[in-house]
C-alpha cells in the first residue's frame, strides 16, 4: 500500500480545487455543484463547505446524485448495488453544472451521471471535478476539468480515498 496524498496534502489539494472553482465561477450565480453518490459526496461536501467559508455571502446550489439506476453494468455480477439518496431540489435548466467525484477511472460512472443529470433538465454546460485522475485507464472519451492529482496505475492496482467522516482518517492510497 502506497500513500498518494497525506491528510495535509489532501487538504491543500481540496483548497486549490475550491479556488479554481471560484476562479471560473466567481459569484456562483448560475452554477450548481453536484456530488456523485456514494463516495464523491465526501469530496463535494468538503469543497462546498470550503467555498462557503471563502465566500460567506454567496448562495451556492449544491445537490447529490445517485446513479445506481443508470449504470451500464446492471446485469453483471457486481452490477446490482443498493441505491443511495438523490437530493437535488433545484432545477439545473440553463445552469453550469460541476459534477464532483473522487476517482476518475474508466469514465463509465461519469457517463451514467450525465444521463442521470439530464433527467433534471438541460444544463448550459457541464464540467467535471475529480480528486484523482487515473489516466490511461479510460474506456470512454471523458476527461476532467479540475483535477486534484493525476496518477498512473495499472489495472490490478486500486486507488482508495479515505475520509475522516467515514474511514477515520484522510488519505489517498494505492493498493497493489
Amino acid at each position, binding site marked *: 500500500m502506497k500513500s498518494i496524498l497525506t491528510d495535509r496534502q489532501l487538504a491543500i489539494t481540496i483548497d486549490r480545487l475550491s479556488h479554481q472553482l471560484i476562479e471560473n465561477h466567481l459569484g456562483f450565480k448560475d452554477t450548481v455543484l453536484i456530488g456523485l453518490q456514494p463516495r464523491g459526496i465526501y469530496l463535494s461536501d468538503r469543497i462546498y463547505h470550503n467555498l462557503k467559508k471563502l465566500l460567506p455571502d454567496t448562495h451556492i446550489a449544491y445537490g447529490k446524485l445517485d446513479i445506481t*439506476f*443508470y*449504470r451500464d453494468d*446492471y446485469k453483471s455480477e457486481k452490477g*446490482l448495488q*443498493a*441505491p443511495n439518496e*438523490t437530493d437535488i431540489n433545484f432545477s439545473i435548466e440553463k445552469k453550469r453544472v460541476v459534477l464532483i467525484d473522487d476517482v476518475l477511472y474508466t469514465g463509465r460512472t461519469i457517463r451514467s451521471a450525465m444521463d442521470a443529470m439530464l*433527467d*433534471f433538465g438541460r444544463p448550459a454546460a457541464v464540467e467535471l471535478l475529480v480528486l484523482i485522475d487515473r489516466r490511461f485507464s479510460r474506456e470512454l472519451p471523458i476527461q476532467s476539468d479540475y483535477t486534484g492529482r493525476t496518477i498512473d496505475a495499472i489495472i490490478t492496482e486500486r486507488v482508495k480515498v479515505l475520509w475522516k467522516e467515514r474511514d477515520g482518517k484522510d488519505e489517498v492510497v494505492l493498493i497493489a
Partner: protein
Amino acid sequence: MSLSVKHLLGIRDLTRQDIELIFQTADQLKEVLQRPIKKVPTLRDTTIVNVFFENSTRTRISFELAEKRLGADVVNFSASGSSVSKGETLIDTVNNILSMKVDMVVMRHSATGAPHFLSKHINVPIVNAGDGINEHPTQALLDAFSIRERLGSVEGKKVAICGDIMHSRVALSNIYCLKKLGAEVTVVGPPTLIPKHIAKALDVNVSYDIREALAWCDVANVLRIQLERQNMPLFSSLREYSLAYGVNRALLDSLQKEIVIMHPGPINRGVELSSDVADSGQSIILDQVENGVATRMAVLYLLARKEPVFN
C-alpha cells in the same frame, strides 16, 4: 447484495434482510417518481408480461407503471378474450408468451399456488400478483412500507388486520411480512371469517371484537369483504357486518388515541369502512397506492437482473 430468492412467490419465502433491501431500494425509487422525468433506463433491455387470470385495477396499473418507469417493455395479457377459453393450459399459455422473448412474468391467478407451479416449469423470474387465497406479496410490501413511512418503523408496532381473514391473501402476506419485521399482529373479524388455528399457526392474536382490537393497535388494516370469494353465507347480511365490524367515525372517536387506517382497496364504502374515515387525515389509503409503484419497481429491479433460472 441481492435477494435470497429468484422469484417473488410469497413473503413466506423472504428473509427480513430481503424485505429491508426492497424498502431501501424503494426509498430511492420513490424519489425518482417525484422528478420532472419520472423514469430511469435500468430495465430498457427487459420485456415483462403481465398475465392476469383474474380481474384487477390497482395492481395491474401499478405493476404496469412500475415496469414502464424502470424503462422496461410491457405486454399485457388477460384471460378473458384469450385462448384460455379454448382450453389452453397455463404452461402452454405462458411458454408461448415466453417464446416471443419475454424476460419476466407478473401473474395473478385465482388458483392458489399457480405461480409456484409455474416457477417449476419456466426459466424466467415470476412475480406473484396474487394467487387464490394464498398470498399477495407486493401488497404486503407496500403496506409495511407505508407503515414504516408514516410511523418511522414497523418493528414493535401493533397492527390489527380487520375483516375477512379467511379468504384474504392480503391478510396472509401481511401477517408474514409484519411478523418478519418485528410487528405484533392481531386479526379481528367474525369467527366464521377467521381460520380456526391461525393464532398458533402464524403467531398472531385473535379478537372477535373490533373495538377491543382498535383500542389495542397503532395501525388498522381494514380488509375488503370479498363477496366473490364466498361460496356460503358466513354472516347474515352486509348491514349486520357493517354494524358489528364496520370501522366508522363514531367508533374511532370513542378510542383514546388516533390510529392509522389502511385499506388495500377496492373499498366497499359503508360496509367495512365508512367514507368519513376513508377520506380522513388518519387514512393512508392513497399513500399505499402511491407507494405501490415504488415498492413494485424495487421488486422488479432486484429480480430482473437474475440471469435466466433453470430448474
